[in-house]
C-alpha cells in the first residue's frame, strides 16, 4: 500500500498527488512513468512521473479525470492509501547536451513536460516553453513553467487567457523569425503532437514526442502499447513501455495511434458512469 501524502486540485478536472513510494522516488527520471491500481480489484493505468523528492521518498503524479480509475483515484484523500504503485518504467528522456530547447505542452501533458523543462533549466539550458489549453479554467502550472523557462508562451484555444490560438501559432512565428533549437520536445494530446511535428518538419529540428498508449503490465510483456514507426520507408513495431515513451516524432504513425486509443472509449465512458452512479447512491 502506498500513502497519498498530499492532494492538490490544479483545475476542476486535473489533480496533483504526492505518493509515498521510496523505491520509485530513488530512481525516477523525467520522461518515465509509473503504473498504479487504486484498489485491490482495480485496473492498471500508466501515469507519467510529474516530479519526485528522493529524500522524502515521494513521487508526484498529475492526472486528469477521464475514466473510472481516475475518477476513483480522485476520490481518495491525503492520508489514504492506494493499492499498487510500480516504477519507474520506460526510458528516461534523453536530455544530455541539449542547450537550447523548445518544450511544447498541451493540457494535462504540461504536467509531464514540466519536469523535463525543469531538468533542462537546472542543467543550464535555454528553455522556451509553449503551453496550451482549451480555456482559462483548464490552465495549469503557469507559475511553475515561468520559473524554469527563459521564455513562456501561454495559449488558449478561445483566447480566454494568454494568447488566442493553438501551440503551433507561436511555434510558426518563431520558425518564421528563423529561430532554431537543438530539439523540440512535445507532450500532450496526440492530435496536438501530430500538428507540432508537422509544423517542425520543414525546419528539420529534432522533434521528440511522448506517447501514452493503452497499457497493462508496462514491463514489456503484453504488447498492448505497440505503435508503428515509419523508418526509411519501412514500418517498424515498437513498444511504448520498454522502447519509449519518447519517440522521434517524425517517425510516429499518429493516425494509427489515435485510432488504437479509441478502442475502449465506450467501455471507459460506461465504466466511469457506473462509478459516479455508485457514489451518488451512497451519498
Amino acid at each position, binding site marked *: 500500500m502506498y500513502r497519498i501524502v498530499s492532494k492538490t486540485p490544479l483545475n476542476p478536472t486535473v489533480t496533483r498527488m504526492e505518493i509515498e513510494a521510496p*523505491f*520509485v522516488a530513488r*530512481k525516477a527520471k523525467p520522461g518515465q512513468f509509473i503504473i498504479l*491500481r487504486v484498489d485491490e*480489484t*482495480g*485496473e*492498471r493505468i500508466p501515469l507519467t512521473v510529474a516530479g519526485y523528492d528522493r529524500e522524502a521518498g515521494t513521487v508526484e503524479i498529475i492526472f486528469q479525470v477521464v475514466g*473510472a*480509475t481516475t475518477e476513483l483515484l480522485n476520490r481518495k484523500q491525503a492520508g489514504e492509501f492506494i*493499492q*499498487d*504503485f*510500480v*516504477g*519507474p*518504467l520506460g526510458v528516461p528522456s534523453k536530455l544530455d547536451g541539449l542547450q537550447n530547447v523548445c518544450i511544447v505542452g498541451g493540457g494535462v501533458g504540461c504536467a509531464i513536460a514540466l519536469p523535463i523543462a525543469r531538468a533542462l533549466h537546472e542543467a543550464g539550458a535555454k528553455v522556451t516553453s509553449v503551453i496550451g489549453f482549451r480555456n482559462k479554467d483548464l490552465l495549469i502550472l503557469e507559475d511553475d513553467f515561468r520559473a524554469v523557462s527563459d521564455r513562456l508562451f501561454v495559449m488558449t484555444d478561445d483566447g480566454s487567457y494568454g494568447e488566442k490560438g493553438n501551440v503551433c501559432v507561436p511555434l510558426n512565428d518563431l520558425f518564421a523569425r528563423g529561430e532554431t533549437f537543438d530539439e523540440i520536445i512535445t507532450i500532450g494530446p496526440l492530435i496536438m503532437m501530430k500538428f507540432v511535428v508537422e509544423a517542425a518538419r520543414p525546419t528539420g529540428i529534432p522533434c521528440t514526442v511522448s506517447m501514452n498508449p493503452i497499457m*497493462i*503490465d508496462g*514491463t*514489456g*510483456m*503484453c*504488447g*498492448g502499447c*505497440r*505503435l*508503428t514507426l515509419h523508418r526509411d520507408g519501412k514500418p517498424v*513495431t515498437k*513498444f511504448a513501455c*520498454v522502447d519509449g515513451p519518447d519517440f522521434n516524432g517524425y517517425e510516429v*504513425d499518429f493516425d*494509427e495511434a489515435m*485510432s*488504437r486509443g*479509441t*478502442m*475502449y*472509449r*465506450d*467501455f*471507459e465512458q460506461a*465504466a466511469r458512469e*457506473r462509478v459516479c452512479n455508485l457514489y451518488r447512491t451512497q451519498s
Partner: protein
Amino acid sequence: MSVKPNLSPKKNPMPSQPPEVRAHNFLEVATGYDEATAVDEALRCLHCKNMPCVSGCPVNVEIPAFIEKVKEGDFEGAYEVISRTSSLPAVCGRVCPQETQCEAKCVRGLKGEPVGIGRLERFVADWHNLHSVQPTERPAPNGHKVAVVGSGPAGLTCAGDLAKKGYAVTVFEALHTAGGVLVYGIPEFRLPKEIVRKEVEHLSELGVDVQTNMVVGKTLTVDELFEMGFEAVFIGSGAGLPNFMGIPGESLKGVYSANEFLTRSNLMKAYEENPVTPIRKGGRVAVVGGGNVAMDAARTALRLGAEKVYIVYRRSMEELPARREEVEHAQEEGIEFRLLNNPVEVLGHENPSDRRDPKNGCVTGLKCIRMELGEPDERGRRRPVPVPGSEFVLDVDTVVIAIGTSPNPLIKTTTEGLSVNPRGGIIVEEATGATTREGVFAGGDAVTGAATVISAMGAGKVAAKAIDEFLSKES
C-alpha cells in the same frame, strides 16, 4: 499387505464438465479424482524397480513412492513424498505435459495407457490443500540471503528449494500479484488462481518474502540487490515481448497478442461481469498459432461469449505443438481448426467519407492463404509452402496472435556482465543455471524463450542446488 494390482489397460477417466457446459463458464474443466478412484488408479502402478517414470520428470518426483502411499490411503504421506522434490504439486498435476514426460516412460503404456500419474499428483495435492491441518515448519535460518527475480514457476521453485534449506529468500515480482504466467497466462479453467495463491502462501509459511510491484532492471538493478546484501541472485523473469507476424493490419483495433488477451482475462479478470479492465467479448475470433497458449486463448475467447472461434495454423495437425489433451478439449468445445492456413493480412474497416466513423480501424477479417507441406526442414519438420492463388478471407472481428514471445529485455539491458544469445535469452551453464556473471543464476523462459511450466520448475530446481553449493563453498 498384498493387494491385487489393477490390470485395466485404461486410465480411470478424468471427471470433467461436459463440453457444452464448460464452453460457457470459467470453472475448471477437469474436476479431479475422488479417493476411491485415486486408489484404484494407484493400483495400476507395477512399481518397476528401475523407476523409468522418475527419470522422465524434470524435478524427479519420487513417483512410485507417492503412488504407494496413495494405494495405502495415506494421502498426506503421499503429499510429503511429492513435496520433497516439487514445490508446486497442485500446479504440476494440472499443467505438466505428463504424456511426454513421466507417463511417456511408464511401462503400463507399452500395452494400453500409462498410469495416470498427473491425475494422481493433482489428487494428492488437492487432498492436502483441503484436509491438511499441519502447520508448515519453518526451517532454521542458515544466515544467507538470496534474491529471486520473478515469481513464476522457475522463481517459486528456486525460492521454495532454497527456503527449505534455511536461506532467507526474497522474491521480487513486477506485477501486483505473485505467480507469473500461472496467474497472467494460464486460464482459470485450467488452473484456478486460488491454487496458485495457496502455493504462494505455502512458500510464505516457509519464510519466503514476496515483494510485489518490484521491477528488477527498473525499480532495482541486479547490482543493487548485491549491495543490499543478497549473496546470489536467481533470474526467472520469464517471457517478454510478444512476437507479431509482420503482416499488414496487425495494429488494427481487435488484434491482440495472446499475452495481452490472456492477461486482460486472467490477471485483470476481464471475464467477470462489469469488469474494470476491458476486453472484446463475443464476436468471431481467429487465434493464430498452434501451441498451448493458442489453445488457452481460443478457449478463453469461447468462454467470453464468442459465436465462432478458429485456430489458424500454417502446418498440419501432426506438427501442431499443443498438448493432445488441450487440442481435444478445444475440439470438443467447438473450436474449429483451420490447418495449413497462413494469415497474410488483417483487414480493417475504412470509411473515407466519415473519418469519425467509430468502426474505422476495427478488424473486419483475416486474409489467409492455403499451405501445403513441402520438403522437410533442418529439424525434420515438413516446411509449409503457400499454394499460389488460394487466398481467402476468414470472417472475424478479433484476431489473437499466439506465435511466441522473446525474453524480457529489462534485466539484460541493465546488468553488466550478463551474456545473452542472439534471440535475447540469458546464456547459462545447463547443469547449474550459472550465468556469465558470478553469483547470478537464471532459468525458465528468460533463458529458453517460451517453454513449459515444468521445464521452468526444473531449471529453478537446478539453480537452487547450484546456489546452495556456491554459497556453501564461500563460507
